[in-house]
């Protein structure tokens, strides 16, 4: 049942996107505004949406993809429930932000721009988040973690997982 619900919800979203795309004039100049609209609605650009856009504007699918990948603002994977954002601004870069990024990538076994199969975590790099004094900085959800160190990564992820398990256990208990 739950699975069917998700499916029908998915279909409803796709239908909504299709009708919104159809409302745009068939002009190549509308490509980016359309992509922005989809990303705003769905938080990423699913393959079906890319196909819809290509069909509507009558341009090759790969061209839509080429344009979309040129801009950092577009995502191609659904964001995780706990999006990890690693700062790559100048201050964080100097303090080896790339090492922090690499650590998250290794611990979660995904690359930047991707989402874990259970959709719990996703990783992206962001520009200066405005607290350079705390460099290197990473955000998990809305929580800022300053003075990041490779050794802190594991612990942060573990805490979120433990909290999730606890919440689930409590839910089960509540249902009983």
């Amino acid at each position, binding site marked *: 049942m739950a699975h069917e619900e998700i499916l029908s919800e998915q279909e409803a979203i796709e239908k909504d996107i299709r009708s919104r795309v159809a409302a745009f004039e068939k002009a190549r100049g509308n490509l980016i505004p359309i992509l922005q609209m989809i990303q705003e609605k769905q938080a990423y650009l699913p393959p079906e949406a890319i196909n819809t856009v290509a069909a509507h504007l009558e341009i*090759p*699918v790969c061209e839509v993809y080429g344009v979309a990948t*040129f801009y950092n603002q577009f995502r191609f994977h659904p964001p995780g429930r706990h999006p990890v954002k690693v700062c790559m601004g100048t201050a964080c870069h100097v303090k080896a932000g790339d090492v922090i990024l690499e650590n998250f990538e290794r611990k979660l076994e995904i690359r930047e721009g991707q989402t874990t199969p259970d959709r719990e975590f996703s990783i992206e790099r962001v520009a200066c988040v405005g607290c350079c004094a705390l460099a290197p900085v990473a955000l998990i959800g809305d929580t800022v973690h300053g003075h990041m160190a490779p050794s802190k990564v594991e612990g942060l992820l573990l805490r979120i997982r433990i909290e999730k398990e606890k919440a689930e256990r409590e839910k089960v208990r509540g249902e009983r």
Partner: protein
Amino acid sequence: MMLNILIDDKKIEAEEGKNLLQACLDNGIYIPNLCHVKDMAHPQASCRLCFVEIEGEKKPVPSCSVTVREGMRVKTDTPSVRRLQRSAFHLLLSRHFIECKVCPANRKCELQKIAKFLKVGLKSNYPLLLPKAVLETGKQETDESHPIFNYYPNRCVLCGLCIHVCRTTHGIALLTFAKRGIDTVISFYGEEDVSRLPGDKCLACVNICPVSAITLKSLS
């Protein structure tokens, strides 16, 4: 109308409207080039290898983006031309994974040809900009998403010839540049549906690639 031009003290004739690089190549004067094809309407001038000096112009210019003029005097081998070509070439090589011995392009490779012509090695003077995993494992990446072709992003020189030839052959390009900057790659995204593919009937992109960065799966 035929125009007279002078290239390195050699007199040649070239048709009006012709591109200078093509005029030289047609007359057996080699100028290193990667991103040029005959009769391309708008040269992309992206590889920055085809520099020449033209009398009356202050700086060397990419010859693929110049149209021949009557009485033009051109030098293809001045020290500043060579300096520019060598730096451009080494920048290209800084994101190129060298493994000539096992590379399908070996011996017919444009990079080998250009290296020989410029009298430089294939090892870049610049720090290598290959992805970390490639440097660590010593193995290059392969994009196997396409049902018929494999694509090797660390071999590709991003000359764009594959996109150009696909577009001129089929009216639309079934492959594209994706991402940007140092991450730029060629992508077949969305064209993986075999039923819609010219497939192994059309190997235009495979055949035009100067470094065999697109190969037939069945052969690799």
